[in-house]
């Protein structure tokens, strides 16, 4: 018997996957529970839908808690209402997603469905189809070395039974020429595609942990999608304030500098990496840059030049995501908007908060490049 709750659970899943009730989509929050299985932290995706109601916002709000701390000690972020909740985890910042219950393919499929993402048309060597032979067929003729023993004897047995020459007491099966079957091959085309994603992030003082969390979540989904589209995806990470350097993934999400900002440093480094390791003829290149948009004024021109002359001609997509910070957002978004009109492989996105991630991913990946 189907349990009653399964109907409700299925409805919920369908809504999350965007199959029904599009009007609820905007209330889906992609939270996660951090759990432990066998000593390893796992992230359990936990979509939730909040039915809108008249309720208090964070402003002017507050409550009562219990425990140590002085006046002014922070105890929680907006969004996770500290007065509510059963104490589920989820507040360990920078905890990477190590394992999810869904497979990555399923996740990507959900993402693709939900966002109605077009499938990417890989460029470069994707068009050069590599052919490979695979033995998947059967033929009536062929060299004896490829004779399919089992099929041949089956066919002989069939013929003998049909012609009543088979004797179970003396189960002797002798194939004749018509019985003989041979393996055959079919050519399989294997598109050879490689993709590299360069993540660039501003780690200057004005980018807080909240902004980085947004970048982390967004990058996770972008990775997931790209991996579903390519055989192999390489990711590389560049952080910058006034200077840029390449780092590993962990450092990428955990560095905080206090210096000023010079975005061009990151663009130059990205360009160098592309030239050295990822020739555009062989690679599908994605450059995704996240910043709060505050740049050293004179540097903007340099950035635009590097983009126009070096990066944009080489990559499938250059995406710039401007994450709103508590210190306001800078002008870099506008600068790019003005400098590049209607460039098909340039995507700009403003990300207000976590809720903005969903739409931003669509802006980046919705062009199917």
């Amino acid at each position, binding site marked *: 018997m189907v349990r009653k709750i399964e109907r409700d659970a299925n409805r919920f899943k369908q809504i999350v996957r965007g199959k029904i009730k599009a009007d609820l989509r905007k209330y889906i929050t992609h939270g996660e529970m951090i759990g432990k299985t066998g000593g390893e932290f796992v992230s359990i995706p936990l979509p939730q839908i909040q039915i809108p109601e*008249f309720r208090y916002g964070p402003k002017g709000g507050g409550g009562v808690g219990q425990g140590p701390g002085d006046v002014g000690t*922070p105890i929680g972020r907006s969004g996770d209402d500290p007065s509510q909740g059963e104490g589920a985890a989820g507040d360990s910042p920078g905890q990477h997603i190590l394992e999810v219950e869904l497979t990555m393919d399923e996740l990507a499929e959900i993402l693709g469905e939900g966002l109605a993402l077009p499938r990417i048309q890989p460029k470069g060597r994707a068009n050069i189809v590599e052919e490979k032979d695979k033995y998947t067929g059967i033929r009536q003729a062929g060299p004896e070395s490829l004779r399919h023993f089992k099929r041949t004897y089956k066919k002989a047995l069939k013929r003998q039974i049909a012609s009543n020459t088979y004797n179970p007491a003396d189960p002797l099966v002798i194939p004749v020429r018509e019985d003989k079957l041979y393996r055959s091959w079919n050519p399989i085309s294997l598109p050879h595609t490689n993709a590299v994603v360069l993540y660039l992030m501003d780690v200057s003082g004005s980018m807080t942990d909240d902004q980085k969390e947004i970048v982390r979540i967004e990058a996770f989904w972008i990775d997931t999608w790209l991996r579903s589209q390519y055989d192999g995806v390489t990711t590389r990470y560049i952080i910058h304030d006034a200077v840029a350097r390449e780092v590993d993934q962990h450092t990428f999400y955990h560095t905080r500098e206090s210096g000023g900002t010079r975005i061009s440093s990151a663009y130059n480094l990205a360009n160098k990496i592309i030239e050295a390791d990822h020739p555009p003829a062989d690679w599908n290149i994605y450059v995704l840059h996240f910043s709060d948009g505050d740049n050293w004024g004179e540097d903007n021109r340099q950035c635009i030049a590097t983009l126009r002359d070096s990066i944009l001609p080489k990559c499938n997509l250059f995406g710039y995501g401007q994450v709103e910070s508590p210190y306001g957002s800078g002008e870099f978004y506008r600068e790019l908007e003005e400098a590049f009109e209607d460039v098909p492989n340039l995507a700009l996105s403003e990300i207000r908060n976590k809720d903005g991630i969903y739409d931003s991913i669509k802006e980046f990946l919705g062009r199917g490049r």
Partner: protein
Amino acid sequence: MSTEHNLPADLRALQVEIEGHAREFGLDFYDTVFEVLDYDELSEIAALGGFPTRYPHWRFGMEYEQLSKGYRYGLQKIYEMVINNDPCYAYLLRCNQRVDQKLVMAHVYGHNDFFKNNVWFSQTSRKMMDETANHGNRIRSAMERHGEETVESFIDSCLSLENLIDIYSPFIKRRGTPDRYDFSAAGEAEGVGRKFRSKDYMDSYVNPPEYLKEMARREEAEAQKARQFPEQPERDVMLFLLEHAPLNAWQRDVLDIVRQEAYYFAPQGQTKIMNEGWASFWHSTIMTTRTLEPSELVDYADHHSGTMATQPGRLNPYKLGIELFRDIEERWDRGQFGPEYDECENSEVKRRWDKKLGLGRKKIFEVRSIYNDVTFIDTFLTPEFCRRHGLFSFKHNDLSETYEIESREFKKIKERLLFGLTNFGQPIIRVKDGNHRNRGEMYLLHEHFGADLKLDHAQDTLRHLHRLWTRPVHLETIIDGRANLLSFDGSEHSVRPLGGISHEQPEPRPVRRG
């Protein structure tokens, strides 16, 4: 789900024992039906708010996902569930140890006593198990006739308005039956605005003109009020919609069901601290004084402390409740109350105060009967208690977008607690006018107590409201210290400042770092 006693013999024996202890302590409860469930079944029923036969809706599926996932990954676990019903239904987890079953049973009898005796539950249906089944059938048959999608999505709209009820209304008869005879004509003859007969030269004395004017004004106001719709701002917005929204029969039925269930659950929200505190008080008392075996001590201590654990920044209602009940019991045992005690300034004398009155037990039973969380905290939270338990108030820092500790002052803590508990932490909103601008538009009024509404939610709630009302809807509220009117006319949202006053200066913009 069967409802007969299917309890295994060992648990049945345990129930008899625990019930005996509970009765001896003076608890007074409905019959209790325990059911033993696997975790999956428990998650299912918990997701359905305790009612296995509730109406279908995706939200229950969402709850279920969370509960079952949380359990599978070892993040959370429900131990027990008790349903306010006569008989009272309670669910036990099959895989629990014996000591857990004892603890849960003792806890259940505490809740059961609370449900039966606390005045805020007195108006709830005690046949809710049957009623939810009935609601389920009604909604299922509406789905068959009008389509699953249509009905479910109408439920979404009703749920969006679910908190717009008047939690006091079950106790108040607001609408008298209309008078059988209308005396208004007779009343008017000696009406307030009428002049007495008098000689001309006496007229200004017998009928003072200011008085006449005042009377005329009052009469006008009365007449105005009679034209007002609703006469008084109506807090039970759901009822107002039931009575006046242009709904068809099945929609009215769905709205009625959602409203009734909201009223059924409201007292649980109003007495969360007390109810959990009371149940915890009794499981702890029964376990430690009667039934705990030495071999069970460590597991009991582990599980009890798990329930009572506090985290920085979170208030555990179980913990706050049980400690307050204990505090009350001790204070009334020692006579630490009344004007003499309150006026004593010497903290050392106060600390040692003991008149050996022994009134504690009696007092806490009285408290469990007639208080709700708001009056409970208002009456029994003391500065000593706040200090002893390390309570603090926190507030939102708009700059850093974090909540931070605001104060450890008693007054502030109490204020925040009471605010959070008032109307179970939900904003109070009334229908001010059901015929706004004489165009049948609905005008709601938010009583602002210092916290702004979440704007996007408010706007989308108006959208849902419009779906029921079908005419433009408005909400008057305060945003950043200014009165504003949020409106939705069926296709567009608008926010219009009203001629209100500003309470706060806008904060200076922070200097940008970069």
